[in-house]
């Protein structure tokens, strides 16, 4: 495989993990989050700091980075206990801006210059090749899908979807919404943490600009365009929204316009996305009722 294709596929894999993680928050538990890039940034930055400033090994700093991301993710998910829907959407936008600003204006985190020299993973004494990194990424993608699959069918997953359908009613039958909202945020940020480690390690250099609000919008769009509350939906959404800019490279100037238009048209005419409940793909596959 050419290195261009490998890089593209690795990027795609990271976004699949991110979209699946956001899907747990948005699709399973029904909490709007427009700040997923903030969680991604926390994963990437904690990994970068642990490897470059404390020179810990790849695996150890990876594990610590995920723990830190989950911890901060739970704290940042706390507003979801207090505010709902539209307020939560705006609060998470705010969280995204504030997290980005903290990384940008704190010298410890490298400021606007970012952090460089983040190590690649090693196999014995040799550095990973790009192909090996690609395999590592897709092992993670596989685990992300597996955990999503198990979570959705578990008791906790059912409780989350009950909260999504009707928070008050599920509270009445003894499902504590607070516990499962926090669980969803914890799991979603664990995914973002893993994606952050992969990103920081693969790029070797991160800066606050990589985790802007526009990235959060892109991740949420992947979930919604693909179809929330499924596993195939966010995966497909990530593949679609990452490959479209590459396919449309010849008309690069119009890419963002096409992206905006796609979001508008999908939401206007196909609100459940490609693979969501009653989505376009299922309708095409299913034979018509006679």
């Amino acid at each position, binding site marked *: 495989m050419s290195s261009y294709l490998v890089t593209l596929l690795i990027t795609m894999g990271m976004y699949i993990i991110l979209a699946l993680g956001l899907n747990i928050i*948005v699709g399973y538990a029904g909490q*709007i989050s427009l700040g997923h890039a903030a969680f991604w940034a926390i994963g990437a930055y904690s990994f970068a700091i642990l490897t470059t400033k404390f020179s810990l090994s790849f695996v150890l700093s990876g594990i610590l980075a995920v723990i830190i991301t989950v911890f901060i993710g739970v704290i940042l998910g706390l*507003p979801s206990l*207090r*505010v709902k*829907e*539209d*307020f939560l*959407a*705006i*609060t998470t*936008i*705010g*969280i995204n*801006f*504030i997290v980005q*600003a*903290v990384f*940008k*204006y*704190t010298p410890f985190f490298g400021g606007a210059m970012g952090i460089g020299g983040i190590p690649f993973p090693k196999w014995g004494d040799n550095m990973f090749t790009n192909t090996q990194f690609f395999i590592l990424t897709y092992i993670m993608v596989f685990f992300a899908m597996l955990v999503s699959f198990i979570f959705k069918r578990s008791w906790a997953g059912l409780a989350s979807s009950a909260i999504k359908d009707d928070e008050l009613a599920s509270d009445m039958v003894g499902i504590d919404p607070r516990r499962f909202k926090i669980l969803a945020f914890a799991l979603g940020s664990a995914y973002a943490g893993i994606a952050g480690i992969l990103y920081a390690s693969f790029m070797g250099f991160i800066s606050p600009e990589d985790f802007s*609000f526009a990235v959060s*919008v892109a991740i*949420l*769009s992947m979930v*919604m365009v693909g179809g929330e509350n499924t596993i195939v939906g966010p995966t497909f959404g990530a593949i679609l929204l990452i490959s479209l800019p590459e396919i449309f490279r010849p008309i690069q*100037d*119009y890419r*963002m*316009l096409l*992206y*905006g*238009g*796609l*979001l*508008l*048209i*999908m*939401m*206007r005419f196909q*609100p459940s996305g490609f693979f969501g409940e009653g989505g376009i793909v299922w309708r095409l596959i299913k034979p018509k009722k006679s």
Partner: protein
Amino acid sequence: MWLQQLINGLTIGGVYALISIGLTMVYGVLKIIHVAHAGVYVIGAYTGLYTYIFTHNFFLALILSMAVSAFFGVLIQNYVYFPLLKYPPIVPLIASIGIFISIEEGIRLIFGPYIKSFPNGLFSERYHLGSAYLSGTQLTVLVLSFVFILILWYITERTKFGVSLKAVSQDMEMAEVMSINSKRVTLITFAIGSALAGIAGLLVGVYFNSVYPAMGDMPAYKSLAIIVVGGMGNIWGTFYAAILVGLIETILIGTLSIPLPRDSLAFIFMILVLMIKPEGLSFLFNKR
């Protein structure tokens, strides 16, 4: 020094108020986070700029930018938001972000990505007030934003339409039972809100003497923070919140050196308000 900060803060606050009041009115009737409102604001700025370049008539520029913005607002409401009302709020939100990206990109492709400015410095005179001074553009921005807010006050508090607007905001179905045409009220609300956004775009363009496609990015998200502080859908809460955010920003940045960018202050303020008083400043207006 303090007087100067006060003037600057009020000017910025007035412009924020114009943008956010439109947004909060829209939220009040449809309960949709109208991110594309900032797109309408950019359209208003460009319409005003080009009208001024061709006619050198500021009054005409103002009228046209109001009209064109109102037209686009109604278009968005009628063809995108109305059919999406039955879906969960995340669907119109993503659609709105899609519209916002499309508008900004469309404008960038048509008019180019460069910063454009008003020819031969509009309102270049200066007025001295003791130690502070007030530039002509500042005066224009201040006067016009307060004039339009007064007009809005009259419309919402003293006319029949204002009463129907409040009724529809509280309960759309019940308002229809009382024979209020809620679709018409929503359309007029969008027209007024978008016209205010258009004026705000034009005034910001005049104030900083620069108009560019990405000028809507910052207001798009800051106005959301402001309407949360103002209590989502509450017009006068939003007005005070906008003035307050304008003043706080200007004074904190101007006097203390805070290591955070100006634009994240509104969000920090918002999160503080949410944690202390989730209903925002609107508690000041509930007479219960």
